[in-house]
């Protein structure tokens, strides 16, 4: 702004207040404000309604589901939920997924932070190459590796096992985890670790007792990122846990399967109950941790 004299500059706040006051009146409850709220509310409904509808449909009968979609169920009984949990094995799939994701996320974080720490803080021949090797994994679509990956896992004898899925999840989560955490470890001050080493702390102890606690914010973000990514995986489970090990399936393939079966068995309430059983915990966890989840997921994009 070309404000030549100091008096003009001093007058700015008052002028600004006056100018924005005029504008502000129009912006609050005016036409624009109403339109803005309508647009936002419509999108919010577009998101809430399908989820709510699924939840309500789990209490409906087949006839009600295929009738008018905008009616409430006649009674709120949890029959379909019980059916989905037991007969459609949703309970089993949920438990499988919890175990797999817990172990694979823990493994990803441990191995990823170890690799990232060494790559960020130690100079040695090959450091740069190993870092680039990890990061290059970000550029490749997983579909390119699909066929050989299937045979690698099969040849090791881990096809159809949770151990195989866990190892593959860890391996495919490493590129982003290493990329993100290397940058994070580099941003931490070096003085604390140096002081610890001078006091006779070993490299390993320095890492676990000094550096990991210091890196906590970064670790939390990337842990959330990995938990959600692995929980929502669909491609790897359907390739690595084929149809003959149905008892080992994970939740996403289980839901997709009862969706196919619902057509044959005509158990639509069961399908929506199964969906609700998986979605409701997500809603609860999301509402509790929404701030961390939002920053965890978007942290990847803000490089």
């Amino acid at each position, binding site marked *: 702004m070309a404000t030549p004299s100091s008096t003009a500059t001093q007058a700015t706040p008052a002028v600004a207040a006056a100018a924005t006051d005029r504008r502000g009146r129009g912006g609050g409850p005016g036409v624009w404000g109403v339109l803005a709220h309508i647009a936002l509310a419509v999108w919010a409904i577009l998101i809430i309604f399908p989820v709510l509808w699924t939840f309500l449909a789990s209490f409906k009968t087949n006839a009600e589901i295929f009738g008018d979609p905008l009616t409430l169920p006649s009674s709120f009984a949890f029959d379909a939920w019980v059916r989905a949990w037991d007969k459609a094995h949703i309970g089993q799939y949920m438990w499988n997924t919890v175990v797999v994701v817990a172990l694979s996320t823990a493994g990803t974080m441990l191995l990823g932070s170890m690799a990232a720490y060494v*790559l960020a803080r130690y100079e040695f021949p090959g450091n740069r190459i190993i870092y680039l090797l990890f990061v290059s994994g970000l550029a490749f679509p997983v579909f390119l590796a699909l*066929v050989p990956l299937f045979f690698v896992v099969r040849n090791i004898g881990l096809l159809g096992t949770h151990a195989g899925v866990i190892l593959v999840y860890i391996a495919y989560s490493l590129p982003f985890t290493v990329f993100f955490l290397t940058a994070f470890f580099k941003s931490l001050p070096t003085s604390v670790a140096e002081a610890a080493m001078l006091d006779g702390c070993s490299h390993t102890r320095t890492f676990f007792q000094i550096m990991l606690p210091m890196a906590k914010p970064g670790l939390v973000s990337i842990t959330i990122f990995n938990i959600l990514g692995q*929980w929502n995986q669909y491609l790897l489970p359907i390739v690595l846990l084929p149809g003959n090990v149905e008892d080992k399936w994970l939740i996403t393939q289980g839901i997709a399967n009862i969706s196919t079966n619902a057509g044959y068995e005509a158990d639509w309430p069961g399908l929506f109950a199964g*969906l609700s059983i998986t979605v409701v915990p997500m809603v609860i966890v999301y509402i509790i941790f929404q701030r961390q989840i939002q920053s965890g997921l978007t942290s990847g994009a803000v490089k």
Partner: protein
Amino acid sequence: MRHGKYPFIIGFLAAPLILYVVFVISPYLQAFYIAMTDWRGITASPNFTGLDNFARLLEDEVFWAAVRHHIVLLVAMPLLTIAIALFFAYLLNLGGGSRGGRMNGVAGSGFYRVVFFFPQVLAVAIVGVLFQAIYRPDESGVINGVLARFGIEPVGWLTNPDIALWSIIAVMVWQAVGFYVVLFSAGMSAIPKDVFEAAALDGAGRFRMFFSITLPLLWDTLQVGWVYLGIAAFDGFALVQVLSVDRGGPDNATTVLPLEIWRNAFNFSKYGYASAMGVALFFMTITFAVLTLRVTRRERIEY
């Protein structure tokens, strides 16, 4: 203090590196070789066929259908998502007008942000099953049920080959918008408030403010968003596999390359051919990423 450095480095890097090389790097490298063989799995030993698979790809109608769908996805999905997300992010952060010389978001912006982001935590496979019910082609479908109230004939959202792909794009946008609202919001809140104040003082209206200030200052974030969405446009596997009629139908109207890779490999056991598709997909993704970064490169605006 120095001694023990190399054992420590090796100890920390060995496990992640071995896991990564076995499950990620080696499959990627093998894929390029398998793509040049006629490998059909266990029985026949693979013959090296050079570029035969790629020559066949060029004459494969399904392959070209999938490529066309990726082009549509690549244009429509990022454009719609970014436009909607920008609009909402603007409303949520700055759309409330300026009170007391400060730009504010509309009332309730915290609530909207939480709701909008929610689909992001749902697994794509689960979203697919959810939208099967919403898109059902008769009046029992949620959308068609609502349309019926207004006397509109049911639409075959997924069964009509002309609109099936657009129905799937709509679901992708539905799921993605919230993420970019949060991402762009973070970008907008980093723009100093006095820039807007100065513009308001100079008499800039809302639209002028958006196109001349917000948009240019948000360019870096937009670029990141565009690359992310573009890469997502080369996927679409889980959604198309779960949601579309006949997995990619009707009549290949919605198929995508990842789905064809999976189908050729695990339904038809054409491992060589599937890998050739994987290689094609890889080069498309890389070309897109490099082109986008080149074309959208701009001088960074410092503030």
